[in-house]
């Protein structure tokens, strides 16, 4: 089964296998290129030798023999190199958490915990709104109280303008005097009425 090396890919931004394939193809291309260059040089040299019977076909045959051997060794060595690189270089050890996943280390919460947390945040938000509402209501009442108190004080002040509850100075005494003597007046009135009958 293919191990897609997803976590490594998340870190490197490419799959390690692609990287190895890229290296393999590049190395192999160089082996071929250098072999072509070698064959060209030998061909050129051989053809410049006086009386040389070495043909291009023979040289090509030699090249293919050497290249076949080199490719076989190349592939074997490359498999080993690939294993080492995939295990030791292009590898995220199992105990490693990538920086972008750090939160999973601290908050391994499951689905339920998360929903509970979301609900609690929502309830807190509603409570906060309620408290804000209460605050506005209280401030509104304080505002109303201020106006009411001002009006009541104004009324009281108006009363004060009339003097104290017994009216302007002396009115109280006069009233008391009147009250006191109104009784006398009433009895005199009654006497007079009596006598006139």
């Amino acid at each position, binding site marked *: 089964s293919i191990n897609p090396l997803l976590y490594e890919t998340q870190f490197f931004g490419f799959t390690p296998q692609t990287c190895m394939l890229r290296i393999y193809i590049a190395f192999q291309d*160089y082996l071929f290129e250098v072999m072509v260059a070698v064959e060209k040089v030998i061909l050129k040299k051989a053809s410049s030798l006086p009386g040389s019977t070495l043909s291009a076909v023979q040289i090509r045959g030699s090249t293919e023999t050497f290249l076949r051997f080199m490719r076989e060794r190349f592939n074997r060595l490359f498999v080993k190199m690939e294993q080492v690189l995939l295990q030791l270089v292009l590898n995220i050890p199992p105990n490693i958490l990538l920086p972008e996943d750090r939160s999973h280390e601290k908050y391994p919460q499951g689905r339920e915990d998360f929903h509970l947390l979301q609900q609690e945040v929502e309830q807190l938000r509603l409570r906060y709104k309620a408290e804000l509402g209460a*605050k506005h209501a*209280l401030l509104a009442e304080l505002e109303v109280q201020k106006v009411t108190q001002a009006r009541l004080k104004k009324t*009281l002040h108006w009363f004060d303008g009339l003097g104290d509850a017994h009216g302007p100075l002396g009115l109280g005494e006069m009233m008391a005097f009147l009250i006191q003597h109104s009784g006398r007046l009433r009895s005199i009135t009654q006497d007079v009425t009596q006598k006139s009958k």
Partner: protein
Amino acid sequence: HIPKVKLLDTVVDTFLQKLVSAGSYERFAKCYKRFYKLQPEMTRLIYDQFITQLQTSIREEVSTIKEEGNLEAVLNSLDKIVEEAEDRKEPAWRPSGIPEDDVRSTLIPYFLQQQSSLKRLVQEQERENVKLAEMVLEGRKQVLELQQQIQARKQAWQMLTQVPKTL
């Protein structure tokens, strides 16, 4: 810990060494036997050139790949991450394959932060509201007192207005 960049270079060098020792001069001369018999020195020269060119090309390719993938910096940062996690042995979290599950943990710190700031705001507001409520109660008391005072005055005056009628 051998730095991964050094490991990469070492592994490639080992690969090259083994490739070169596999493709030895003897093997090369044996394959190009006819030419070797005609020109042994030239054969040696060509072989040496072949090996040098192959090694140079492969090393240059590795440098190119390092540059393309910014591999040195990336591998060095990986070394650092590995070093920091030295004390943790148990296997670390890995993506579950269910994105909504995985993203949840990413969001938790923000919800926790939201939760604590809302808690603080609610407490502050509650404290403030307690004070405001006391002020409102005090205010209501004062309004009541003022009303009572006015009531008393009113009655006193009403009493007073009775007197002339009585008279």
